[in-house]
């Protein structure tokens, strides 16, 4: 595809080289209040009719300067802020932060707490991917799968509410353990949910949306992201795996106790079109939910008895001086926290969050060039961004 320069785009009226009569490109401000930008994202599209010549992202509408906040609260006070980063996958965000702090403090977490963390993080991955499934269907124009996905997601949120008292912003994983032990019957409820969920994915979600011909036509061969481009742009998570790169931090850079579980890393195979198109990214998410189900099943069976908090953790947490970068596979990709402690303050001296959505969104300009307006919506949806995570 030829490189489009700004000079070409803002070409003088009436002097378009390819047209015999006066034409001009239209600049379309998509957002910040647009139904399909998944929050407050503004995309400045230079369009030729319905064809996008250039789509520039303008982010920051949801910027709260979380990193500055984190410098002014206690170590455990950062956790509620991490919840609010990616508000659809709060457990994953908590997980990443607490294991980074624990790495810096050099403490161990009780076995039971590790299992609880894995179970909740994987349940959260299911909930988050369900949301991605539903909103993607809605971007393409199907409304019903959205509410069905929400129905299943509600069951996960119900489990979380019973477990820790909150439905969306959990503050569940604490430094040194987890805040609540499981209630009686959690394992049974979880298992029964997983059984119905697996059935629902294969009997309802896949036939109605994933293998619908219109949906395939809309998403296959659209927004192709080659593996080299994906790695170059720092794309992680399902988007990277959708491009066929076999990379999952849970397996390749294991943290917590993920090395004890047996699961597959799903990659895009170009089943309906080219490897790395929107359909592949979507399908990776659908199949990852099934892999998460496997992990939760194993974890529930293996979960030992014991304490859920490290006894050495005091009410006022002291962290030794040092720097550490911890990363986990959050539902949307590699979530990293770079923490600097000076050993004196009550909170982090500097916290940098490397959010997956931030890097994932940056590729939009590259892969949306030359597509149609409807395809742009499909591409944004398939990248599955959360603006709270992009803007922090």
């Amino acid at each position, binding site marked *: 595809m030829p490189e489009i320069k700004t000079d070409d785009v803002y070409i003088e009226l009436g002097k378009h080289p390819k047209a015999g009569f006066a034409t001009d490109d239209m600049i379309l401000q998509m957002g910040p209040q647009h139904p399909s930008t998944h929050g407050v994202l503004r995309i400045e599209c230079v369009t030729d009719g319905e064809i996008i010549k250039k789509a520039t992202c303008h982010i920051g509408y949801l910027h709260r*300067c979380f990193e500055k906040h984190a410098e002014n609260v206690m170590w455990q006070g950062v956790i509620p802020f991490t919840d609010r980063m990616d508000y659809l996958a709060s457990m994953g965000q908590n997980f990443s932060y607490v294991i980074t702090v624990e790495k810096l403090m050099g403490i161990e977490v009780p076995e039971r707490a590790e299992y609880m963390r894995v179970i909740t993080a994987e349940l959260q991955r299911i909930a988050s991917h369900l949301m991605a499934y539903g909103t993607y269907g809605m971007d393409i124009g199907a409304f019903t799968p959205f509410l069905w996905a929400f129905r299943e997601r509600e069951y996960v949120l119900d489990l979380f509410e019973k477990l820790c008292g909150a439905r969306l912003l959990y503050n569940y994983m604490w430094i040194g353990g987890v805040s609540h032990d499981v209630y009686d019957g959690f394992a049974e409820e979880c298992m029964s949910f997983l059984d119905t969920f697996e059935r629902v994915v294969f009997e309802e979600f896949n036939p109605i949306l994933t293998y619908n011909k219109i949906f395939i036509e809309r998403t296959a061969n659209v927004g192709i992201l080659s593996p080299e481009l994906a790695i170059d*742009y720092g794309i992680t998570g399902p988007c990277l795996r959708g491009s066929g790169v076999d990379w999952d931090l849970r397996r390749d850079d294991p943290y917590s106790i993920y090395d004890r579980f047996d699961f597959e890393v799903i990659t895009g195979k170009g089943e309906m079109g080219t490897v790395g198109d929107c359909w592949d990214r979507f399908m990776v998410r659908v199949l990852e939910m099934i892999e998460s189900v496997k992990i939760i099943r194993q974890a529930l069976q293996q979960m030992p008895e014991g304490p859920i908090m490290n006894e050495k953790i005091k009410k006022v947490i002291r962290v030794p001086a040092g720097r550490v970068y911890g990363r986990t596979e959050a539902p949307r990709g590699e979530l990293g926290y*770079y923490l600097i402690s000076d050993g004196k303050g009550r909170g982090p001296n500097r916290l940098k969050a490397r959010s997956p959505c931030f890097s994932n969104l*940056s590729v939009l300009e590259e892969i949306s060039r030359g597509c149609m307006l409807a395809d742009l919506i499909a591409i944004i949806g398939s990248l599955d961004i959360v603006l709270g995570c992009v803007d922090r």
Partner: protein
Amino acid sequence: MVQGEFVMTIEEIYKKLRKSFGGTILESDLEVLEPVVGIEPQSIAEVSGFLKNEPDLKFTSLMCLSSVDLDEENLQVVYHLHSMDHNHKIILGVIIPKNAAKIPTVSGVWRTANWHEREAFDLMGVEFEGHPDHRRILCPDDWEGHPLRKDYVVQEMYNGLPVPYPKEEDD
């Protein structure tokens, strides 16, 4: 993907870098948890290109690019690199003075650095020379100051609107 035999320890990578670049690689303490290899500011782009393209290093992915307010005088830009082919990691750190915070861009090496550098510029005020799209990213274009600096004072008014949260009146 993982090829264990190529994994290099941080010491080996450090030695290799010292051999190729000599003095621009600063003396670094490699004993601490996650050691940072110090680099001279002007040579960061070259070192990055070397790290990415050298066959037995292959640092294809830039995990994270952070800017740090080090002390009164200095800022630091920290690069977390990771090789998907060989599964080894390195952390580079570049220290630059606050009053002349300029550093060559690495967005030509890893394109993910594009937005991360814009963020570092926006929030910490590090200027990246040669960056293709050097604008603020998160704050509005006409915002004053760089919020993540420790000495940052929030501006009183922005486009005629008061910025700081109004102080509660004691009843």
